[in-house]
Protein backbone atom coordinates (compact mmCIF):
# COMPACT_ATOMS: atom_id res chain seq x y z
CA UNK A 1 0.00 0.00 0.00
CA UNK A 2 1.32 3.43 -0.88
CA UNK A 3 0.60 6.42 1.33
CA UNK A 4 0.69 9.58 -0.69
CA UNK A 5 -1.11 12.85 -0.12
CA UNK A 6 -4.50 13.46 -1.68
CA UNK A 7 -4.79 16.24 -4.17
CA UNK A 8 -6.31 19.50 -2.97
CA UNK A 9 -9.05 19.08 -5.58
CA UNK A 10 -10.03 15.73 -4.15
CA UNK A 11 -10.18 17.04 -0.61
CA UNK A 12 -12.25 20.02 -1.72
CA UNK A 13 -14.65 17.69 -3.51
CA UNK A 14 -15.12 15.66 -0.37
CA UNK A 15 -15.46 18.80 1.72
CA UNK A 16 -18.12 20.23 -0.54
CA UNK A 17 -20.13 17.06 -0.32
CA UNK A 18 -19.70 17.12 3.46
CA UNK A 19 -21.00 20.66 3.70
CA UNK A 20 -24.16 19.57 1.93
CA UNK A 21 -24.85 16.98 4.58
CA UNK A 22 -26.62 18.03 7.77
CA UNK A 23 -25.66 14.84 9.57
CA UNK A 24 -21.97 14.86 8.85
CA UNK A 25 -20.43 17.35 11.24
CA UNK A 26 -21.04 15.63 14.58
CA UNK A 27 -20.17 12.26 13.12
CA UNK A 28 -16.80 12.99 11.63
CA UNK A 29 -13.52 11.17 12.32
CA UNK A 30 -10.07 12.68 12.56
CA UNK A 31 -7.95 10.60 10.23
CA UNK A 32 -5.12 10.39 12.74
CA UNK A 33 -7.45 8.94 15.37
CA UNK A 34 -8.94 6.14 13.27
CA UNK A 35 -8.33 2.74 14.80
CA UNK A 36 -5.86 0.59 12.90
CA UNK A 37 -5.39 -3.15 13.06
CA UNK A 38 -2.40 -5.29 12.13
CA UNK A 39 -2.57 -7.82 9.32
CA UNK A 40 -1.25 -10.90 11.17
CA UNK A 41 0.77 -12.35 8.28
CA UNK A 42 2.81 -9.17 7.77
CA UNK A 43 2.32 -6.85 10.72
CA UNK A 44 1.24 -4.07 8.36
CA UNK A 45 -1.46 -1.90 9.91
CA UNK A 46 -4.64 -0.84 8.21
CA UNK A 47 -7.65 1.32 9.16
CA UNK A 48 -10.33 -0.81 10.80
CA UNK A 49 -13.16 0.57 8.64
CA UNK A 50 -12.97 0.03 4.90
CA UNK A 51 -15.37 0.65 2.04
CA UNK A 52 -17.50 -2.01 0.36
CA UNK A 53 -18.85 -1.44 -3.14
CA UNK A 54 -21.61 -4.07 -3.53
CA UNK A 55 -24.57 -2.32 -5.23
CA UNK A 56 -23.53 1.18 -4.10
CA UNK A 57 -20.77 1.63 -6.70
CA UNK A 58 -22.58 -0.16 -9.53
CA UNK A 59 -23.75 3.04 -11.22
CA UNK A 60 -22.82 2.21 -14.81
CA UNK A 61 -21.95 5.13 -17.04
CA UNK A 62 -24.06 7.65 -15.14
CA UNK A 63 -21.73 10.69 -14.87
CA UNK A 64 -23.57 12.25 -11.92
CA UNK A 65 -23.52 9.06 -9.87
CA UNK A 66 -19.88 8.36 -10.79
CA UNK A 67 -18.94 11.74 -9.37
CA UNK A 68 -20.93 10.98 -6.23
CA UNK A 69 -18.94 7.76 -5.80
CA UNK A 70 -15.71 9.68 -6.29
CA UNK A 71 -16.82 12.13 -3.57
CA UNK A 72 -17.46 9.18 -1.25
CA UNK A 73 -13.96 7.88 -1.96
CA UNK A 74 -12.45 11.33 -1.35
CA UNK A 75 -14.18 11.61 2.03
CA UNK A 76 -13.17 8.03 2.85
CA UNK A 77 -9.48 8.65 2.26
CA UNK A 78 -9.58 12.08 3.86
CA UNK A 79 -10.96 10.63 7.09
CA UNK A 80 -8.37 7.86 7.20
CA UNK A 81 -9.96 4.97 5.29
CA UNK A 82 -7.72 2.71 3.23
CA UNK A 83 -9.28 -0.60 2.11
CA UNK A 84 -11.75 -0.60 -0.78
CA UNK A 85 -13.22 -3.99 -1.65
CA UNK A 86 -14.90 -5.03 -4.89
CA UNK A 87 -15.53 -7.98 -7.20
CA UNK A 88 -16.04 -8.72 -10.90
CA UNK A 89 -19.54 -9.77 -9.84
CA UNK A 90 -20.46 -6.23 -8.79
CA UNK A 91 -21.40 -4.91 -12.24
CA UNK A 92 -19.65 -1.62 -12.98
CA UNK A 93 -18.22 -1.16 -9.48
CA UNK A 94 -14.64 -1.87 -10.57
CA UNK A 95 -14.54 0.74 -13.38
CA UNK A 96 -16.31 3.21 -11.08
CA UNK A 97 -13.56 2.71 -8.47
CA UNK A 98 -11.03 3.22 -11.25
CA UNK A 99 -12.80 6.43 -12.24
CA UNK A 100 -12.66 7.66 -8.65
CA UNK A 101 -9.00 6.76 -8.19
CA UNK A 102 -8.08 8.52 -11.43
CA UNK A 103 -10.06 11.59 -10.42
CA UNK A 104 -8.56 11.74 -6.93
CA UNK A 105 -4.97 11.33 -8.02
CA UNK A 106 -2.62 9.35 -5.79
CA UNK A 107 -5.03 8.01 -3.20
CA UNK A 108 -3.65 5.79 -0.40
CA UNK A 109 -5.85 2.87 -1.35
CA UNK A 110 -5.50 -0.68 -0.11
CA UNK A 111 -6.98 -2.46 -3.12
CA UNK A 112 -8.96 -5.59 -2.34
CA UNK A 113 -10.71 -7.44 -5.12
CA UNK A 114 -11.83 -10.96 -5.96
CA UNK A 115 -11.67 -13.59 -8.63
CA UNK A 116 -15.10 -14.90 -9.58
CA UNK A 117 -15.15 -17.21 -12.56
CA UNK A 118 -15.17 -20.94 -13.17
CA UNK A 119 -12.64 -20.72 -16.00
CA UNK A 120 -9.89 -18.20 -16.82
CA UNK A 121 -8.93 -16.60 -13.49
CA UNK A 122 -5.76 -14.81 -14.68
CA UNK A 123 -7.62 -13.09 -17.53
CA UNK A 124 -10.35 -11.90 -15.17
CA UNK A 125 -7.80 -10.65 -12.64
CA UNK A 126 -6.00 -8.68 -15.34
CA UNK A 127 -9.28 -7.19 -16.53
CA UNK A 128 -10.11 -6.19 -12.94
CA UNK A 129 -6.67 -4.61 -12.49
CA UNK A 130 -7.16 -2.54 -15.62
CA UNK A 131 -10.57 -1.39 -14.40
CA UNK A 132 -9.05 -0.21 -11.12
CA UNK A 133 -6.01 1.30 -12.85
CA UNK A 134 -3.62 0.04 -10.17
CA UNK A 135 -0.20 -1.53 -10.84
CA UNK A 136 -1.14 -4.55 -8.72
CA UNK A 137 -3.73 -5.55 -6.16
CA UNK A 138 -2.92 -5.57 -2.48
CA UNK A 139 -5.38 -8.39 -1.83
CA UNK A 140 -7.15 -10.87 -4.07
CA UNK A 141 -9.78 -13.24 -2.71
CA UNK A 142 -11.62 -16.22 -4.12
CA UNK A 143 -15.22 -14.98 -4.30
CA UNK A 144 -17.65 -17.30 -2.51
CA UNK A 145 -15.21 -20.21 -2.89
CA UNK A 146 -15.98 -20.54 -6.61
CA UNK A 147 -13.35 -22.86 -8.18
CA UNK A 148 -11.23 -22.17 -5.11
CA UNK A 149 -8.55 -24.82 -5.66
CA UNK A 150 -7.55 -23.51 -9.10
CA UNK A 151 -7.80 -19.86 -8.08
CA UNK A 152 -5.75 -20.27 -4.91
CA UNK A 153 -2.94 -21.82 -6.98
CA UNK A 154 -3.04 -18.80 -9.26
CA UNK A 155 -3.07 -16.33 -6.35
CA UNK A 156 -0.19 -18.04 -4.51
CA UNK A 157 1.85 -17.95 -7.72
CA UNK A 158 1.08 -14.24 -8.17
CA UNK A 159 2.10 -13.55 -4.58
CA UNK A 160 5.32 -15.52 -5.05
CA UNK A 161 6.08 -13.48 -8.17
CA UNK A 162 5.46 -10.17 -6.37
CA UNK A 163 2.32 -9.42 -8.38
CA UNK A 164 0.10 -9.59 -5.31
CA UNK A 165 0.60 -8.95 -1.60
CA UNK A 166 -2.11 -10.95 0.14
CA UNK A 167 -4.40 -13.92 -0.61
CA UNK A 168 -7.84 -14.62 0.82
CA UNK A 169 -11.22 -16.29 0.46
CA UNK A 170 -14.73 -14.95 0.96
CA UNK A 171 -18.20 -16.02 1.90
CA UNK A 172 -21.29 -14.06 2.87
CA UNK A 173 -24.44 -14.45 4.90
CA UNK A 174 -23.37 -17.70 6.51
CA UNK A 175 -23.03 -19.78 3.36
CA UNK A 176 -20.72 -22.84 3.07
CA UNK A 177 -19.11 -22.33 6.44
CA UNK A 178 -18.05 -25.98 6.71
CA UNK A 179 -15.99 -25.81 3.54
CA UNK A 180 -14.78 -22.33 4.49
CA UNK A 181 -13.47 -23.69 7.78
CA UNK A 182 -11.78 -26.65 6.06
CA UNK A 183 -9.96 -24.29 3.70
CA UNK A 184 -8.94 -22.05 6.59
CA UNK A 185 -7.45 -25.07 8.35
CA UNK A 186 -5.45 -26.26 5.34
CA UNK A 187 -4.45 -23.22 3.30
CA UNK A 188 -1.92 -20.47 4.20
CA UNK A 189 -4.36 -17.59 3.76
CA UNK A 190 -3.62 -13.99 4.71
CA UNK A 191 -7.27 -12.87 4.81
CA UNK A 192 -10.74 -14.33 5.17
CA UNK A 193 -13.90 -12.35 4.49
CA UNK A 194 -17.23 -13.24 6.04
CA UNK A 195 -20.49 -11.78 7.33
CA UNK A 196 -20.63 -10.70 10.96
CA UNK A 197 -22.78 -8.22 12.84
CA UNK A 198 -24.72 -7.84 16.05
CA UNK A 199 -27.48 -10.23 14.93
CA UNK A 200 -25.51 -12.58 12.62
CA UNK A 201 -23.06 -14.03 15.16
CA UNK A 202 -22.58 -17.65 14.05
CA UNK A 203 -18.94 -16.97 13.07
CA UNK A 204 -18.08 -16.26 16.73
CA UNK A 205 -18.35 -19.99 17.37
CA UNK A 206 -15.68 -21.37 15.04
CA UNK A 207 -14.49 -19.12 12.21
CA UNK A 208 -13.37 -16.05 14.17
CA UNK A 209 -11.42 -18.07 16.78
CA UNK A 210 -9.91 -20.14 13.99
CA UNK A 211 -8.78 -16.99 12.17
CA UNK A 212 -7.02 -15.86 15.37
CA UNK A 213 -5.39 -19.28 15.81
CA UNK A 214 -4.23 -19.39 12.20
CA UNK A 215 -3.05 -15.76 12.08
CA UNK A 216 -5.48 -14.66 9.41
CA UNK A 217 -6.88 -11.16 9.02
CA UNK A 218 -10.69 -10.94 9.00
CA UNK A 219 -12.72 -8.67 6.74
CA UNK A 220 -16.34 -8.29 7.80
CA UNK A 221 -18.89 -7.80 5.02
CA UNK A 222 -22.61 -6.95 5.26
CA UNK A 223 -22.17 -5.25 8.67
CA UNK A 224 -25.60 -3.66 8.27
CA UNK A 225 -27.21 -6.62 6.48
CA UNK A 226 -27.16 -4.60 3.27
CA UNK A 227 -28.99 -1.76 5.07
CA UNK A 228 -31.82 -3.96 6.39
CA UNK A 229 -30.47 -3.90 9.94
CA UNK A 230 -30.05 -0.12 10.19
CA UNK A 231 -33.47 0.38 8.53
CA UNK A 232 -35.07 -1.94 11.08
CA UNK A 233 -33.40 -0.11 13.95
CA UNK A 234 -33.84 3.48 12.79
CA UNK A 235 -37.24 3.83 14.46
CA UNK A 236 -35.92 2.49 17.74
CA UNK A 237 -34.25 4.65 20.40
CA UNK A 238 -30.48 4.45 20.70
CA UNK A 239 -29.83 3.66 24.39
CA UNK A 240 -28.39 6.47 26.51
CA UNK A 241 -25.43 4.30 27.45
CA UNK A 242 -24.35 4.16 23.78
CA UNK A 243 -22.62 7.46 24.56
CA UNK A 244 -20.23 5.56 26.84
CA UNK A 245 -18.65 3.97 23.77
CA UNK A 246 -19.03 7.09 21.63
CA UNK A 247 -21.78 5.70 19.40
CA UNK A 248 -23.95 8.54 18.06
CA UNK A 249 -26.02 6.43 15.66
CA UNK A 250 -27.17 2.87 15.10
CA UNK A 251 -24.57 2.46 12.36
CA UNK A 252 -21.81 3.37 14.80
CA UNK A 253 -23.35 1.18 17.49
CA UNK A 254 -23.24 -1.83 15.14
CA UNK A 255 -19.76 -1.08 13.79
CA UNK A 256 -18.31 -0.66 17.27
CA UNK A 257 -19.76 -4.02 18.24
CA UNK A 258 -18.10 -5.65 15.20
CA UNK A 259 -14.75 -3.93 15.67
CA UNK A 260 -14.62 -4.85 19.34
CA UNK A 261 -14.23 -8.52 18.47
CA UNK A 262 -10.49 -9.16 18.72
CA UNK A 263 -10.38 -11.29 15.57
CA UNK A 264 -11.81 -8.59 13.32
CA UNK A 265 -9.36 -6.61 11.22
CA UNK A 266 -11.56 -4.49 8.93
CA UNK A 267 -15.29 -3.98 8.49
CA UNK A 268 -16.35 -2.88 5.02
CA UNK A 269 -19.74 -1.14 5.04
CA UNK A 270 -20.89 -0.04 1.59
CA UNK A 271 -22.44 3.36 1.04
CA UNK A 272 -23.06 5.88 -1.70
CA UNK A 273 -23.27 8.82 0.72
CA UNK A 274 -20.48 11.06 1.97
CA UNK A 275 -22.10 11.64 5.37
CA UNK A 276 -22.45 7.90 5.89
CA UNK A 277 -18.86 7.09 4.97
CA UNK A 278 -17.66 9.73 7.44
CA UNK A 279 -20.03 8.39 10.10
CA UNK A 280 -18.69 4.87 9.51
CA UNK A 281 -15.07 5.94 9.88
CA UNK A 282 -15.92 7.87 13.02
CA UNK A 283 -17.06 4.56 14.52
CA UNK A 284 -13.40 3.52 14.43
CA UNK A 285 -12.46 6.32 16.82
CA UNK A 286 -12.96 6.61 20.57
CA UNK A 287 -13.63 3.73 22.94
CA UNK A 288 -14.77 0.26 21.92
CA UNK A 289 -17.04 -1.89 24.07
CA UNK A 290 -15.55 -4.43 26.45
CA UNK A 291 -17.01 -7.91 26.91
CA UNK A 292 -19.66 -6.77 29.38
CA UNK A 293 -20.74 -3.95 27.12
CA UNK A 294 -20.84 -6.28 24.10
CA UNK A 295 -23.26 -8.55 25.95
CA UNK A 296 -25.37 -5.56 26.91
CA UNK A 297 -25.44 -4.30 23.30
CA UNK A 298 -26.45 -7.66 21.88
CA UNK A 299 -29.14 -8.15 24.51
CA UNK A 300 -30.56 -4.68 23.85
CA UNK A 301 -30.83 -5.24 20.10
CA UNK A 302 -32.27 -8.70 20.61
CA UNK A 303 -35.14 -7.41 22.74
CA UNK A 304 -36.14 -4.69 20.24
Amino acid at each position, binding site marked *: MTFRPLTRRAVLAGGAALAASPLALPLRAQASQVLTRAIPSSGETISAVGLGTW*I*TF*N*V*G*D*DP*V*LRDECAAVMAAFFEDGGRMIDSSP*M*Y*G*SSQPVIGYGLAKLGDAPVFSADKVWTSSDGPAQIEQSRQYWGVPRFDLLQVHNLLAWQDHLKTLYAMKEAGQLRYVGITTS*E*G*RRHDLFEEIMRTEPLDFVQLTYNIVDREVEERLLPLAQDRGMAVIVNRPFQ*QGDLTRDLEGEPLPDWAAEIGAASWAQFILKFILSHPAVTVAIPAT*SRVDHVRENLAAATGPLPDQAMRRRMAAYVEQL
Partner: protein
Amino acid sequence: MLDWSYRLSDFLLFSPRVYWRMFELHNEALWPLPLATLALGIAMLILVILRPRRSGRWIAIVLAILWALVGWSFLWHRYAAINWAAFYIAPFFGLQALLLLVGGLLDRLRFDQSGVRHAAGCGLVTFALVGYPLLAPLSGRPWAGAEIFGITPDPTAIATLGFLVFVRAKMALLLMPIPILWCVISSTTLLAMDAWVGWIPAAAGLLALAALALRHRVSDETVQPGR
Protein backbone atom coordinates in the same frame (compact mmCIF):
# COMPACT_ATOMS: atom_id res chain seq x y z
CA MET B 1 -26.44 -27.76 -6.47
CA LEU B 2 -28.96 -24.99 -5.99
CA ASP B 3 -28.55 -22.88 -2.88
CA TRP B 4 -32.04 -22.05 -1.59
CA SER B 5 -30.72 -19.65 1.04
CA TYR B 6 -30.63 -16.87 -1.59
CA ARG B 7 -33.45 -14.34 -1.69
CA LEU B 8 -34.70 -12.56 -4.80
CA SER B 9 -33.08 -9.32 -3.67
CA ASP B 10 -29.68 -11.08 -3.39
CA PHE B 11 -29.56 -11.13 -7.19
CA LEU B 12 -30.16 -7.41 -7.51
CA LEU B 13 -26.84 -5.82 -8.44
CA PHE B 14 -27.95 -2.18 -8.44
CA SER B 15 -30.04 0.29 -6.48
CA PRO B 16 -33.48 1.47 -7.63
CA ARG B 17 -32.07 4.97 -8.05
CA VAL B 18 -29.46 3.74 -10.55
CA TYR B 19 -32.06 1.64 -12.38
CA TRP B 20 -34.56 4.46 -12.85
CA ARG B 21 -31.91 7.04 -13.79
CA MET B 22 -30.85 4.68 -16.56
CA PHE B 23 -34.07 5.46 -18.46
CA GLU B 24 -33.49 9.21 -18.13
CA LEU B 25 -29.98 8.84 -19.55
CA HIS B 26 -31.20 6.58 -22.34
CA ASN B 27 -34.00 8.91 -23.43
CA GLU B 28 -31.61 11.83 -23.35
CA ALA B 29 -29.02 9.95 -25.42
CA LEU B 30 -31.54 8.94 -28.11
CA TRP B 31 -33.73 12.04 -28.14
CA PRO B 32 -35.84 12.71 -30.27
CA LEU B 33 -35.99 9.06 -31.36
CA PRO B 34 -38.49 8.20 -28.57
CA LEU B 35 -41.03 10.50 -30.26
CA ALA B 36 -40.49 8.70 -33.56
CA THR B 37 -40.89 5.20 -32.10
CA LEU B 38 -44.02 6.28 -30.24
CA ALA B 39 -45.45 7.66 -33.51
CA LEU B 40 -44.56 4.39 -35.25
CA GLY B 41 -46.39 2.46 -32.56
CA ILE B 42 -49.52 4.56 -32.97
CA ALA B 43 -49.34 4.18 -36.75
CA MET B 44 -49.06 0.40 -36.42
CA LEU B 45 -52.07 0.29 -34.11
CA ILE B 46 -54.09 2.25 -36.68
CA LEU B 47 -52.96 -0.19 -39.40
CA VAL B 48 -54.07 -3.16 -37.32
CA ILE B 49 -57.48 -1.59 -36.80
CA LEU B 50 -57.99 -0.50 -40.43
CA ARG B 51 -56.34 -3.62 -41.94
CA PRO B 52 -55.18 -2.33 -45.32
CA ARG B 53 -53.57 -4.97 -47.60
CA ARG B 54 -49.97 -5.95 -46.86
CA SER B 55 -49.97 -4.00 -43.60
CA GLY B 56 -48.98 -7.14 -41.66
CA ARG B 57 -45.67 -7.34 -43.46
CA TRP B 58 -44.72 -3.77 -42.53
CA ILE B 59 -45.84 -4.09 -38.94
CA ALA B 60 -43.69 -7.19 -38.52
CA ILE B 61 -40.67 -5.54 -40.12
CA VAL B 62 -40.96 -2.40 -37.99
CA LEU B 63 -41.33 -4.52 -34.84
CA ALA B 64 -38.23 -6.47 -35.89
CA ILE B 65 -36.23 -3.26 -36.25
CA LEU B 66 -37.40 -2.00 -32.84
CA TRP B 67 -36.54 -5.29 -31.09
CA ALA B 68 -33.07 -5.13 -32.61
CA LEU B 69 -32.73 -1.50 -31.54
CA VAL B 70 -33.83 -2.18 -27.94
CA GLY B 71 -31.60 -5.26 -27.66
CA TRP B 72 -28.58 -3.48 -29.03
CA SER B 73 -28.90 0.04 -27.63
CA PHE B 74 -30.64 -0.57 -24.31
CA LEU B 75 -29.68 -4.07 -23.18
CA TRP B 76 -26.22 -4.38 -24.66
CA HIS B 77 -24.97 -0.82 -24.33
CA ARG B 78 -26.94 0.55 -21.40
CA TYR B 79 -28.38 -2.06 -19.05
CA ALA B 80 -25.42 -4.46 -19.26
CA ALA B 81 -23.25 -1.80 -17.61
CA ILE B 82 -25.05 -2.40 -14.31
CA ASN B 83 -26.36 -5.92 -14.88
CA TRP B 84 -24.02 -8.37 -16.58
CA ALA B 85 -26.95 -10.75 -17.14
CA ALA B 86 -28.19 -8.34 -19.83
CA PHE B 87 -25.32 -9.51 -22.06
CA TYR B 88 -26.94 -12.93 -22.09
CA ILE B 89 -30.46 -11.59 -22.65
CA ALA B 90 -29.64 -9.21 -25.51
CA PRO B 91 -29.11 -12.03 -28.07
CA PHE B 92 -32.68 -13.19 -27.43
CA PHE B 93 -33.86 -9.76 -28.51
CA GLY B 94 -31.83 -10.27 -31.69
CA LEU B 95 -33.49 -13.65 -32.18
CA GLN B 96 -36.93 -12.09 -31.71
CA ALA B 97 -36.03 -9.45 -34.29
CA LEU B 98 -34.96 -12.19 -36.71
CA LEU B 99 -38.17 -14.17 -36.20
CA LEU B 100 -40.31 -11.08 -36.76
CA LEU B 101 -38.29 -10.13 -39.83
CA VAL B 102 -38.64 -13.59 -41.39
CA GLY B 103 -42.35 -13.64 -40.56
CA GLY B 104 -42.74 -10.22 -42.15
CA LEU B 105 -40.73 -10.95 -45.28
CA LEU B 106 -42.62 -14.20 -45.83
CA ASP B 107 -45.86 -12.30 -45.21
CA ARG B 108 -46.89 -14.85 -42.59
CA LEU B 109 -48.22 -12.36 -40.07
CA ARG B 110 -51.84 -11.42 -40.61
CA PHE B 111 -53.19 -9.15 -37.91
CA ASP B 112 -56.76 -10.13 -38.66
CA GLN B 113 -58.32 -11.53 -35.50
CA SER B 114 -61.51 -9.90 -34.24
CA GLY B 115 -63.89 -9.93 -31.29
CA VAL B 116 -62.46 -10.33 -27.79
CA ARG B 117 -58.93 -10.85 -29.10
CA HIS B 118 -59.15 -7.63 -31.04
CA ALA B 119 -60.18 -5.79 -27.90
CA ALA B 120 -57.44 -7.45 -25.80
CA GLY B 121 -54.80 -6.68 -28.43
CA CYS B 122 -55.90 -3.05 -28.75
CA GLY B 123 -55.89 -2.73 -24.98
CA LEU B 124 -52.38 -4.11 -24.55
CA VAL B 125 -50.91 -2.02 -27.37
CA THR B 126 -52.64 1.16 -26.19
CA PHE B 127 -51.42 0.58 -22.64
CA ALA B 128 -47.85 -0.02 -23.83
CA LEU B 129 -47.87 3.13 -25.98
CA VAL B 130 -49.71 5.55 -23.70
CA GLY B 131 -50.02 4.00 -20.26
CA TYR B 132 -46.47 2.77 -19.76
CA PRO B 133 -44.82 6.20 -20.10
CA LEU B 134 -47.25 7.48 -17.45
CA LEU B 135 -45.90 5.05 -14.88
CA ALA B 136 -42.87 7.32 -14.33
CA PRO B 137 -44.80 10.36 -13.07
CA LEU B 138 -47.34 8.12 -11.32
CA SER B 139 -44.45 6.59 -9.39
CA GLY B 140 -42.98 9.97 -8.50
CA ARG B 141 -40.24 9.79 -11.10
CA PRO B 142 -39.53 12.50 -13.68
CA TRP B 143 -41.09 12.45 -17.15
CA ALA B 144 -37.58 12.33 -18.55
CA GLY B 145 -37.36 8.76 -17.26
CA ALA B 146 -40.53 7.57 -18.99
CA GLU B 147 -40.26 4.14 -20.59
CA ILE B 148 -41.13 4.46 -24.27
CA PHE B 149 -42.20 1.83 -26.80
CA GLY B 150 -39.37 0.97 -29.19
CA ILE B 151 -36.76 2.46 -26.86
CA THR B 152 -36.98 0.34 -23.71
CA PRO B 153 -37.86 -3.34 -23.30
CA ASP B 154 -41.04 -3.38 -21.17
CA PRO B 155 -43.39 -1.37 -23.38
CA THR B 156 -41.82 -2.92 -26.48
CA ALA B 157 -42.49 -6.43 -25.19
CA ILE B 158 -46.02 -5.62 -24.01
CA ALA B 159 -46.97 -3.88 -27.28
CA THR B 160 -45.54 -6.81 -29.25
CA LEU B 161 -47.64 -9.23 -27.21
CA GLY B 162 -50.64 -7.01 -27.95
CA PHE B 163 -49.94 -7.10 -31.68
CA LEU B 164 -49.44 -10.88 -31.56
CA VAL B 165 -52.87 -11.35 -30.03
CA PHE B 166 -54.19 -10.25 -33.45
CA VAL B 167 -52.17 -12.96 -35.21
CA ARG B 168 -53.21 -16.57 -35.86
CA ALA B 169 -52.16 -19.07 -33.23
CA LYS B 170 -49.21 -20.88 -34.83
CA MET B 171 -47.23 -17.72 -35.56
CA ALA B 172 -48.18 -16.21 -32.21
CA LEU B 173 -46.93 -19.30 -30.37
CA LEU B 174 -43.62 -18.96 -32.20
CA LEU B 175 -43.26 -15.25 -31.50
CA MET B 176 -44.60 -14.91 -27.97
CA PRO B 177 -42.03 -16.84 -25.84
CA ILE B 178 -39.31 -14.17 -25.88
CA PRO B 179 -41.61 -11.22 -25.01
CA ILE B 180 -43.19 -13.38 -22.29
CA LEU B 181 -39.73 -14.32 -21.01
CA TRP B 182 -38.78 -10.65 -20.84
CA CYS B 183 -41.98 -9.80 -18.95
CA VAL B 184 -41.10 -12.44 -16.36
CA ILE B 185 -37.53 -11.13 -16.03
CA SER B 186 -38.68 -7.53 -15.74
CA SER B 187 -41.37 -8.30 -13.16
CA THR B 188 -38.86 -10.29 -11.11
CA THR B 189 -36.37 -7.42 -11.19
CA LEU B 190 -38.93 -4.75 -10.30
CA LEU B 191 -40.47 -6.79 -7.50
CA ALA B 192 -37.00 -7.38 -6.07
CA MET B 193 -36.74 -3.58 -5.92
CA ASP B 194 -40.13 -3.43 -4.14
CA ALA B 195 -41.57 -1.43 -7.05
CA TRP B 196 -45.36 -1.73 -7.34
CA VAL B 197 -45.11 -1.51 -11.13
CA GLY B 198 -43.44 -4.92 -11.02
CA TRP B 199 -46.79 -6.66 -11.36
CA ILE B 200 -47.53 -4.96 -14.67
CA PRO B 201 -45.26 -6.83 -17.15
CA ALA B 202 -46.29 -10.20 -15.70
CA ALA B 203 -49.97 -9.23 -15.81
CA ALA B 204 -49.60 -8.12 -19.43
CA GLY B 205 -47.98 -11.44 -20.30
CA LEU B 206 -50.78 -13.37 -18.62
CA LEU B 207 -53.42 -11.31 -20.42
CA ALA B 208 -51.77 -12.03 -23.77
CA LEU B 209 -51.62 -15.75 -23.01
CA ALA B 210 -55.24 -15.75 -21.88
CA ALA B 211 -56.29 -14.04 -25.12
CA LEU B 212 -54.29 -16.59 -27.08
CA ALA B 213 -55.88 -19.49 -25.19
CA LEU B 214 -59.30 -18.02 -25.89
CA ARG B 215 -58.45 -17.87 -29.55
CA HIS B 216 -57.36 -21.53 -29.49
CA ARG B 217 -60.65 -22.57 -27.99
CA VAL B 218 -62.70 -20.48 -30.40
CA SER B 219 -60.62 -21.74 -33.35
CA ASP B 220 -61.15 -25.35 -32.31
CA GLU B 221 -64.88 -24.79 -32.09
CA THR B 222 -64.82 -23.17 -35.49
CA VAL B 223 -62.95 -26.09 -37.07
CA GLN B 224 -65.10 -28.73 -35.39
CA PRO B 225 -68.49 -27.11 -34.97
CA GLY B 226 -70.30 -30.36 -34.29
CA ARG B 227 -68.17 -31.39 -31.31
